[in-house]
């Protein structure tokens, strides 16, 4: 790989260095997971429509007091022009569940495979490991100001993630997605029989349902910010790097 890289950097204009940024496992998981997550959010909204109230505790139904009542998501389609935001576009709890439960398997086992691969290819250890100095307020402030100036990488080490990038990727991979999976499992009466501790961790099935929704909202927020930053950082280069693995260091940031 390094030979190939060197050849490429020599043949390209020297100021516009190309670095190998994303390993194969990362690229495959990224796209498989992107498809799964869009389908899960779209079908999850239809499932929410069946009973759009959230509760804390073991039980929660119409005679109990919800802490949050949600709008009906299938009604949003016509509001945003021709756009459909749910799967399917119309209300069908049965079909939405089929989509949701199929892609839940892709989502969960995909994460597991990615985690194993990323331990072996050292993606986690090399790229995502947060060190204590990274979290010092001065480092965070520096990174924050860099973001405001649309500078998203360190010119000295363009192949590294910045601190906010690391924090958000670590948060999504190690916290939000696992929480989605385990709260989802806690909603299953069959899994509650197999693993009763699921209910103990989340404080009951309806609490798990609430946490499932909160984490889904946070992941949606992550996707919006992630896509915005991809667009700001140069979408062609960013998307290509997630397909081929090669990322061109933006102009003016090279040596």
């Amino acid at each position, binding site marked *: 790989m390094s030979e190939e890289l060197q050849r490429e950097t020599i043949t390209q204009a020297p100021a516009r260095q190309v670095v190998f940024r994303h390993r194969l496992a990362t690229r495959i998981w990224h796209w498989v997971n992107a498809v799964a997550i869009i389908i899960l959010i779209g079908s999850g909204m239809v499932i929410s429509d069946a*009973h759009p109230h959230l509760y804390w505790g*073991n*039980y929660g139904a119409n005679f*109990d007091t919800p802490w949050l009542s949600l709008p009906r998501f299938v009604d949003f389609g016509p509001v945003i022009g021709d756009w459909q935001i749910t799967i399917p576009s119309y209300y069908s*709890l049965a079909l939405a569940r089929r989509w949701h439960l199929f892609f*839940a*398997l892709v989502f969960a086992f995909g994460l597991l495979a990615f985690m194993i691969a990323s331990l072996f290819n050292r993606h986690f250890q090399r790229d995502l490991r947060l060190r204590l100095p990274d979290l010092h307020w001065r480092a965070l402030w520096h990174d924050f100001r860099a973001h405001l100036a649309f500078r998203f990488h360190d010119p000295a080490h363009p192949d590294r993630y910045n601190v906010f990038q690391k924090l958000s990727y670590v948060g999504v991979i190690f916290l939000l997605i696992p929480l989605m999976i385990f709260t989802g499992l806690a909603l299953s009466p069959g899994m509650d029989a*197999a693993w009763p501790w699921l209910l103990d961790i989340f404080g009951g*099935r309806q609490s798990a349902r609430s946490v499932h929704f909160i984490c889904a909202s946070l992941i949606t927020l992550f996707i919006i910010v992630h896509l915005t930053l991809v667009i700001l950082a140069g979408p062609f280069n960013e*998307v290509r790097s997630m397909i081929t693995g090669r990322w061109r260091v933006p102009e003016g940031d090279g040596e």
Partner: protein
Amino acid sequence: MSRLISRRAVTAGLVTGAGALLTGCDAVGRNETAKALLFQGEDFHRTLQRRLQGRDALAPEYRPDQMSPRFRTNGATNPGTDEYRALAADGFRDWRLQVRGLVRRPLSVSLAQLRALPQRAQITRHDCVEGWSAIGKWQGPRLSHLLDLAGLREDANYIVFHCADRHGSTAYYESIDLIDAFHPQTILAWAMNDRLLSIGHGAPVRLRVERQLGYKQAKYVMGIEAVASLSNIGRGKGGFWEDVADYDWYAGI
């Protein structure tokens, strides 16, 4: 390539891609081959859950102080047929549960006989496919006890429940396999929250199969039939909602 153009092009590409994915999902939902693949998820979940839970793993049971203050009804709340009205008027004295199909000794069991069998009481959580949960106390004989009395034949693989409530012209029906039929918490409940089961909740008898969702908990049970295959029941998918709306037959998730 100018950076501005590439930015616009890629953004449009991403948005179009996501839009196409969402629109494509409706088309997939109409295609039989794609649907068959999507519906494989159910078998995968069933196999996985059965392996993880083992045959007799119990659904969680709760303390009396953890029960729902009010347990809502759902689905049919009164079969409303003349036959049912007549049975209810008499406190279900003339009601008989028919146990038939692939059994050595077909049975016709009265409510008094069901109450005379060894009983099991359990406080469990009822999870509706819609997402809500309610906790209540259920009491009745274990289904396995009744099936042992009737003597299941070797070729029986499923237990079908025929109910009194009608949806259009169709009487409700549901089915479970023998793993769930012989599970210790699978009972024919005639009492709920220490009172006789109300009509709204399925009087005189409702199935409790605690490791699955609400639509499997057949209400107004009139007959139990042991069968080798589900292909001759309704349209062949094993239950009313399974047949009319593509709900999963295995409702453990």
